[in-house]
């Protein structure tokens, strides 16, 4: 039985030539073994021997033994390919260089897009995690916020069976921890008890069970723990949190990845915080954020419909402007922009744009390859002719040229891999990511190889078809000419390349224009030379604050100083019903932004009071009075709002001044109504304007003063203008990336042009020679040589104008305050591309023109 099976298996795999004698040997052993021992043993031995005979050299003919892949034919093709590369090394270099840069750029973009997509992706249960958001609907507009009413999270879990967990958490805050007289300033949040059941962190010490329940528990990230406690365990160690008392460490978790939209180094429990901030219990506030985990299978859209009136119901008779909704947490990063209650995108726009750009850059590189290959096809026509005569089929030739192009693409791919590894580090710094790349990693290598193969294949198809389609007879007879169609196609492709690269140049120029506009825009206040520090520790004391202000102003290098609840860059509180005046229409629902300032605010920021006066330190009653901006003034609809009676948050006073409109939110948005109230008790930051001289000394003076007055807190200062620029960080990054992309695109296009020019010069050497002999001038000759290329680039440029205009106009639409796209942008882009074309092309033209006609004509 076993022997029969062995027989069958053996016949299945063994080469027929070897079967007889080996089987004979096996039979012989079988006979011996049966004699020596018994039949069962012999059968078993027979079977085992059959299995052991499964050797490569004994197998039937197969792919490996027949060498189907690496046949002499393929070897020959590869050899020929390398010889061609070597013989025409100039062109091969151009091709490889272009493809390398193209592949590297698009692979980097691919990595960038992937890393953007992976933000928040580290949660295992990401599909069930949602950010709780709200729309606030007013009569004229709807605003969308990431915040919601304080009591929401507790009630939500009770009322909504779909909600598995919901946790409230606060914005990022800095807190001072003290242990053994050492101070540590860390950034973290307050969160309610189920937070760790939703937001997944890896606990190193402690667990998520019963976390954040005890009011004096605190949870630290690994790096924070190491800063504070070193390498020892921190569990149940006590430290004091400035202003909050003693806390015990109940958990240590792995650092939250950079790719998270919610970051923190510590989490404190919510209860003590809520007890202190009683306003949190009111449904009318919107001071907290929420994150929720819905039960698996819940359709969040249906859920959103269900909860849309939730706050209204809770508020009872009071009218609410708030509509609660949830957004999938995985979309939070890429889809963040809401306009009038509708999702309009966000960073996803840039992601899509980058993907398109990556594709086009690859396309430009592939076009180079196609163009150079077809342009030089005449050079290889003879080779094709001879091969065909000797008996090569069209398919074989097609194979040969395809293989050549894939080989070239693969060489470029390897080089691109190396290039990526070199430029990734600086790129990571630029875009603030932690992208990694290694050719040795499969998930990096695979897309790279796929890109390489794809490019090699796609760019090889057309030239291969052209080359392998040559007719042997006409080629060898010498009556062969490249077809007009293929010339036309080549021109078309060059035009296409330049449409894309000129469009990119135009976009880059406009982006830079807009960024310069943003930086230099008159905001309505002077943002230069203002330094600010947070109000914390001792500074929470009014007397110490007064002391600080006096001492700072004693230094003649400080012009003025003030306290406020925030800088004009971050006006983050607003009210709808909290501001009223006699005759305010009942149904008017408008959001008024609020700045709570102390004396010297208007002066520190150099704001212009167009009517009335600023706050006067001599008048104690000014704490009741308000300054409004022009928007508010016009919204009030009163002929002269000055000295009009108005009530804001329970204080009734008069409007004493109207400040000229200034930009307090980003330039993406319109200037909105604003009121400035004098409330020194709400001081969160201290701001001081300096003269602009001896800035380093001034900062030092500020530091020393603060050290005396507030010794426990490390000095932590910022400049208003720097903070302003940081607001536009993503636009600045986009601008820099756009620089590189358009640089790469134009570089690759020019490489192609350079190759074509050299080819043209070579082909027309005799024509030039004859023209020279007949007396043509240098300028004339250069014109003749470059004319064709300039036409192509010019056409590309003309077609790029509408395309580029459309694209950048769209981008600029996101800004409420934007530059106009002037004609200069197009002039510069066009001029630049034509100029570099001339430079690129004229190298070869000049060489051809300067050549001695005797040399080029002597063989005729």
């Amino acid at each position, binding site marked *: 039985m076993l022997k029969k099976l062995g027989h069958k298996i053996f016949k299945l795999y063994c080469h027929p030539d*070897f079967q*007889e*004698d*080996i*089987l*004979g*040997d*096996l*039979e*012989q*052993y079988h*006979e011996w073994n049966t004699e020596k021992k018994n039949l069962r043993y012999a059968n078993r031995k027979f079977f085992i*021997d059959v299995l*052991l*005979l*499964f*050797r*490569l*050299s*004994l197998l039937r003919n197969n792919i490996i033994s027949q060498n189907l892949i690496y046949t002499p034919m393929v070897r020959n093709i590869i050899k020929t390919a390398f010889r061609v590369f070597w013989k025409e090394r100039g062109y091969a270099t151009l091709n490889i260089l272009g493809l390398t840069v193209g592949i590297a750029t698009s692979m980097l973009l691919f990595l960038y897009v992937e890393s953007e997509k992976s933000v928040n992706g580290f949660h295992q249960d990401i599909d069930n995690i949602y950010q709780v958001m709200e729309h606030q609907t007013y009569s004229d507009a709807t605003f969308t916020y990431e915040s919601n009413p304080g009591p929401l999270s507790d009630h939500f879990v009770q009322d909504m069976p779909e909600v598995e967990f919901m946790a409230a958490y606060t914005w990022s805050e800095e807190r001072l921890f003290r242990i053994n007289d050492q101070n540590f300033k860390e950034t973290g949040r307050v969160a309610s008890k189920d937070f760790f059941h939703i937001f997944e962190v890896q606990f190193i010490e402690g667990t998520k069970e019963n976390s954040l329940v005890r009011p004096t528990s605190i949870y630290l990230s690994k790096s924070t723990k190491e800063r504070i406690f070193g390498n020892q365990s921190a569990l149940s160690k006590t430290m004091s949190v400035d202003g909050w008392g003693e806390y015990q460490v109940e958990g240590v978790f792995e650092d939250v990845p950079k790719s998270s939209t919610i970051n923190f180094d510590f989490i404190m429990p919510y209860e003590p915080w809520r007890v202190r901030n009683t306003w949190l219990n009111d449904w009318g506030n919107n001071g907290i954020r929420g994150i929720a985990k819905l039960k698996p299978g819940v359709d969040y859209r249906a859920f959103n419909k269900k909860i849309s009136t939730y706050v209204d119901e809770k508020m009872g008779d009071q009218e609410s402007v708030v509509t609660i909704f949830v957004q999938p947490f995985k979309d939070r990063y890429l889809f963040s922009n809401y306009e009038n209650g509708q999702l309009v995108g966000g960073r996803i726009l840039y992601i899509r744009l980058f993907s398109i750009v990556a594709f086009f850059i690859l396309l430009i590189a592939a076009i180079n390859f196609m163009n150079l290959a077809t342009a030089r096809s005449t050079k290889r026509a003879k080779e094709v002719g001879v091969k065909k005569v000797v008996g090569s089929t069209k398919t074989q030739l097609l194979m040969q040229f395809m293989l050549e192009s894939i080989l070239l693409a693969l060489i470029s791919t390897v080089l691109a891999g190396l290039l990526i590894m070199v430029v990734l580090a600086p790129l990571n710094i630029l875009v603030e990511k932690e992208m990694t790349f290694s050719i040795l990693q499969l998930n990096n290598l695979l897309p790279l190889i796929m890109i390489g193969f794809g490019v090699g294949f796609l760019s090889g198809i057309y030239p291969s078809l052209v080359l392998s389609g040559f007719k042997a007879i006409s080629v060898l007879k010498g009556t062969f000419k490249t077809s007009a169609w293929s010339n036309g196609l080549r021109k078309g492709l060059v035009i296409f390349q330049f449409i894309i690269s000129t469009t990119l140049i135009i976009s880059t120029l406009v982006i830079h224009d807009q960024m310069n506009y943003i930086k230099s825009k008159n905001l309505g206040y002077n943002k230069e030379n203002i330094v600010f520090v947070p109000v914390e520790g001792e500074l929470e004391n009014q007397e110490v604050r007064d002391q600080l202000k006096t001492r700072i102003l004693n230094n003649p290098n400080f012009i003025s100083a003030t306290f406020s609840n925030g800088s004009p860059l971050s006006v983050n509180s607003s009210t709808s019903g909290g501001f009223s005046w006699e005759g305010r229409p009942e149904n008017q629902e408008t959001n008024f932004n609020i700045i709570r300032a102390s004396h010297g605010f208007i002066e520190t920021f150099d704001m212009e009071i167009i009517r009335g006066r600023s706050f006067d330190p001599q008048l104690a009653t000014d704490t009741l009075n308000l300054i409004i901006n022009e928007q508010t003034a016009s919204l009030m609809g009163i002929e002269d709002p000055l000295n009009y009676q108005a009530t804001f948050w329970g204080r009734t006073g008069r409007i004493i001044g109207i400040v000229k409109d200034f930009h307090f939110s980003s330039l993406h948005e319109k200037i909105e109504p604003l009121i400035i109230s004098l409330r020194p008790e709400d001081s969160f930051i201290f701001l001081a304007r300096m003269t602009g001289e001896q800035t380093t000394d001034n900062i030092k003076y500020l530091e020393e003063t603060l050290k005396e007055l507030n010794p426990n807190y490390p000095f932590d200062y910022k400049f208003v203008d720097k903070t302003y620029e940081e607001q536009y960080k993503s636009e600045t990054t986009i601008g820099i990336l756009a620089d590189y992309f358009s640089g790469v695109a134009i570089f690759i296009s020019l490489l192609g042009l350079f190759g074509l020019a050299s080819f043209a010069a070579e082909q027309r050497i005799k024509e030039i020679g004859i023209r020279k002999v007949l007396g043509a001038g240098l300028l004339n000759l250069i014109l003749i040589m470059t004319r064709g290329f300039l036409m192509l680039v010019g056409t590309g440029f003309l077609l790029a104008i509408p395309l580029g205009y459309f694209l950048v106009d769209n981008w600029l639409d996101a800004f409420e305050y934007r530059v106009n796209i002037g004609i200069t942008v197009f002039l510069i882009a066009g001029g630049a591309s034509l100029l570099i074309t001339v430079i690129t092309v004229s190298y070869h033209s000049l060489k051809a023109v300067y050549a001695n006609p005797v040399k080029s004509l002597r063989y005729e």
Partner: protein
Amino acid sequence: MKKYQLGEFEELVLLTVGVLYGEAYGVAIKEEIEKRHQRKVSVGALQSALRRMEEKGFLTSEFGEATKARGGKRKRYFKITAYGKKALDHNIQTRLELWNQIPEVAFEFKVC
């Protein structure tokens, strides 16, 4: 060495084929090696070595007469070719050269 690629086991098989001149077929070679060198030889290793060397040209082979034993299957007799001999010569030569160049001292195993 590169010219005649001959592994240790292959060399052993090749030599044995020479020794068994005229009688060198699978079972006999295996028996011979096992007898002389007290080592187990698997059929698979032996057969693949034989075919490999045949492909390289060190061996040729032909079928013998069919007999009643062995299930009526013919034996395949192997013979060393001239090229095979060259390979053997080369192998032995290089070993010998190395052997001869070992200085006397290297073999003075005195216990000190």
